């Protein structure tokens, strides 16, 4: 009976997913209606330049525009398109980017937006005034200067070519603020909303909801389609599912777990559509390079060889938010590791018996006795940390290791990693755009997020070279070398499984495309309701 139910869920999901795409492509957008969605977290402040949470992006991004944005129809979330920039040119030496800015774009107070506002916003990001935080300024180390020579031109000059620059300028965090306001009060945007986006701000009741209404003066005529939107803050996942199931909300843009998806599909049948994607988040295993026996790369290699990632993927993807077996980039994106290459890396081969025999041999060679015990420190969050942790312990047990898992309460987890107070620990990373320059700096010798404290100038050099390689094929080659060094030759860290994003939504919600990042595609200008 259970099996029958499971099969029916799988069939329904497949049918719904298969049916949703062509239908969405054929349907003509319809204006009107209010989109109601759930946000599992809440914004601490309203200033995206200084926040890190999707709890801000989801309810607030519809009020703002960015210079560039990631194409809202691109499922890889890696294709930059213009937002306030109408077009751009790049100099032959790739050191100067000149953006032509759209004319007639207005802030919600009716004033005209010009390149002066873009410059002021980027000045705030790159050189924040005293007392103002800018969390991602390090990502723009290549920028030598920015300029707004006339109201319709914005120029970025670089110190050296950087292949990721366009995507970096499409960051969903880089909202464009009004220059005059920033000049008067650089803290204004922490508590106020004033943008050029498709929706105007109506109200935010803390702990309850956020409301936006259509901006009739939006530069993209005919858009947005919705009359407005309402974001409801619900922290309990059971209440989130109930909200969608009871049709009090239409979508939750972050992700639901596989069992939650299945319960919604079972309850709502054709009224629900499901979009899924590999997620730009992954759990890694950090091994402290100053602690024995993890200072020995044979031991680190044994730990990754023990993992049967392919079988793990099958089992874990049914119960938690992981699925794909991947290397340093999200599968399906431009710099992802091809499966044939992936299989050559330690722990990615399909012959698990051979891998584990090799792991045991390496442990013996390194002098690690059978039954060697250590503690694996994990973050005290169920999905997917706890599930992955249990799986890891079982995998390591199969090469004769005796591992105890210690769950560290969420707020104490990061300080623990930073202090290096672990032998082996769960590490994680989540990106907002799949791009090596944004995802890989944590593996550099000097990075504060290099929790295992490895020192490897080869990796530092490869990272620098890939970032400056302007030919994509050359860049891929360097990335594969970096990956081999990081995950196979030195095994400084290793990846477990790629997170998997699952967004079930009422089938009447159209015009929204899932991407690998829950920080992307939240402006809602393309979204419409079929009923």
């Amino acid at each position, binding site marked *: 009976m259970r099996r029958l139910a499971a099969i029916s869920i799988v069939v329904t999901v497949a049918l719904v997913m298969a049916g949703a795409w062509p239908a969405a492509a054929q349907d003509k957008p319809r204006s009107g209606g209010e989109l109601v969605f759930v946000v599992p977290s809440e914004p601490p402040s309203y200033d995206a330049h200084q926040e890190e949470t999707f709890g801000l992006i989801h309810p607030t991004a519809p009020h703002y525009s960015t210079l560039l944005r990631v194409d809202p129809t691109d499922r890889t979330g890696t294709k930059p398109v213009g937002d306030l920039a109408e077009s751009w040119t790049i100099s032959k030496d790739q050191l100067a980017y000149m953006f032509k800015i759209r004319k007639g774009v207005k802030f919600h107070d009716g004033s005209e937006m010009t390149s002066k506002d873009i410059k002021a916003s980027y000045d705030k990001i790159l050189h924040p005034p005293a007392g103002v935080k800018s969390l991602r300024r390090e990502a723009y180390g290549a920028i030598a200067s920015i300029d707004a020579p006339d109201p319709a031109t914005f120029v970025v000059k670089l110190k050296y070519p950087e292949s990721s620059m366009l995507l970096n300028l499409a960051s969903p965090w880089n909202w464009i603020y009004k220059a005059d306001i920033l000049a008067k009060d650089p803290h204004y945007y922490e508590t106020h909303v004033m943008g050029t986006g498709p929706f105007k701000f109506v109200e935010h009741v803390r702990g309850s909801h956020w409301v936006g209404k259509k901006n009739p003066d939006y530069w993209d005529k005919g858009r947005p389609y919705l009359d407005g939107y309402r974001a409801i803050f*619900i922290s309990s996942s*059971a*209440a989130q599912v109930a909200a969608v199931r009871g049709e009090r909300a239409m979508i939750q843009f972050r992700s639901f777990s596989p069992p939650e998806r299945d319960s919604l599909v079972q309850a709502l049948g054709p009224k629900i559509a499901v979009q899924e994607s590999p997620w730009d988040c992954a759990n890694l295993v950090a091994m402290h390079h100053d602690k024995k026996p993890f200072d020995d790369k044979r031991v680190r290699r044994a730990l990754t060889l023990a993992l049967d990632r392919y079988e793990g993927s099958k089992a874990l993807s049914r119960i938690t938010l992981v699925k794909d077996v991947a290397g340093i980039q999200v599968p399906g994106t431009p710099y992802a590791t091809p499966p044939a290459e992936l299989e050559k890396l330690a722990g990615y081969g399909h012959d698990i018996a051979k891998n584990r025999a090799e792991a045991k041999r390496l442990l013996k060679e390194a002098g690690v006795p059978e039954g060697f015990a250590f503690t694996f420190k994990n973050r005290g969050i169920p999905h997917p940390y706890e599930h992955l942790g249990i799986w890891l312990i079982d995998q390591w047990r199969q090469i004769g290791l005796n591992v105890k898992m210690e769950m560290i*309460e969420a707020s*104490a987890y990061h300080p623990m990693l930073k202090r290096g107070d672990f032998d082996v620990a769960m590490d994680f990373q989540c990106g907002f755009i799949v791009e090596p320059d944004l995802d890989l700096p944590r593996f550099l010798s000097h990075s504060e997020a290099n929790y295992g404290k490895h020192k490897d100038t080869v990796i530092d050099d490869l990272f620098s070279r890939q970032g400056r390689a302007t030919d994509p094929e050359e860049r891929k080659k360097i990335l594969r070398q970096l990956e081999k060094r990081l995950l196979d030759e030195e095994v400084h860290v290793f990846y477990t499984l790629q997170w998997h994003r699952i967004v079930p939504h009422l089938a009447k919600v159209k015009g929204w495309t899932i991407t690998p990042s829950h920080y992307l595609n939240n402006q809602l200008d393309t979204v419409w309701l079929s009923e």
Partner: protein
Amino acid sequence: VHKYLAKRFLLMLPTLFGVALVTFVLIRVIPGDVVELRYSGDRGSVSQEVIDKERARIGLDKPVWQQFLSWIGGVVRFDFGTSMWTGAPILEEIKLRLALSLQLAVMATIVAVLLAIPLGVLSALKQDTWIDYAVRLFSIAGLAMPSFWLGIVLILVMLVVFRWLPPMVYTPFWVNPVQNLAQLIWPALAVGYRYSAVATRMTRSAMLEVLREDYIRTARAKGLMQKLILSRHALKNAMLPVLTVVALEFAFLIGGLVVTEQVFNLNGIGMLFVQAVAHRDYTLLQALIMLVAGSFIVVNFLMDVAYAWLDPRIRYR
């Protein structure tokens, strides 16, 4: 009487100070802080420099005793500061949620009292009959079922059977009473039922005790009507312990509906508590604990006043 009330009132102050001190110290024993949580985010790669600056900005870099003095100074002036997570004034954060929590507490109390007093009295009057057994079963079931569990069951029944869910956003009663009641009646029933179970059992045992008193026997011997004996002599005296239970439960409801508010997604004080703990928002958490402790202390004080009014023996002791 005045001396008695003044003594009771003055006793509130050291109690509140004790709560403030213990709260302040205990919160800081919990590992991690608001800045780590806010900036660890999903990437976990915000520089230590940013974290240190933010700690300094909100005063977490100062010695704990200095932080305490600064905070307690504010409390004395009824200034609880700003939330470390949102930066909003704490009184504003609490005010935003207090209306919902108070309304829910009042509604749950009404449900509880309407159930508990008639059932408790009936059960006592019909002791050891099937009515008594039924009431006792009903109240034991109420005690055994946590209100949040009952809430989950209510939601599931509404979803599965009626394909309907209460509104997710709070609408004040004076704005739209139907919408308001459609949201709050369910948690009020879930909480009120458990609350009534305690009060029913208390009413029953108090009534049984009072009904065996000499003055009730005397009243009956005088030929007084049963209705008058019950209302004028038995119930009034049996209400003293019931009043205590009802009042303390009411105080608990102001901030104690932590899980129930999560289940029904109610933006009340209980939910704010959860958020404050989850975010390690020290200033907000301290203020909330002071609010709940203050509610208990005030309710206790009012109980003492009520006792003195209801029972002359206390007044003249």
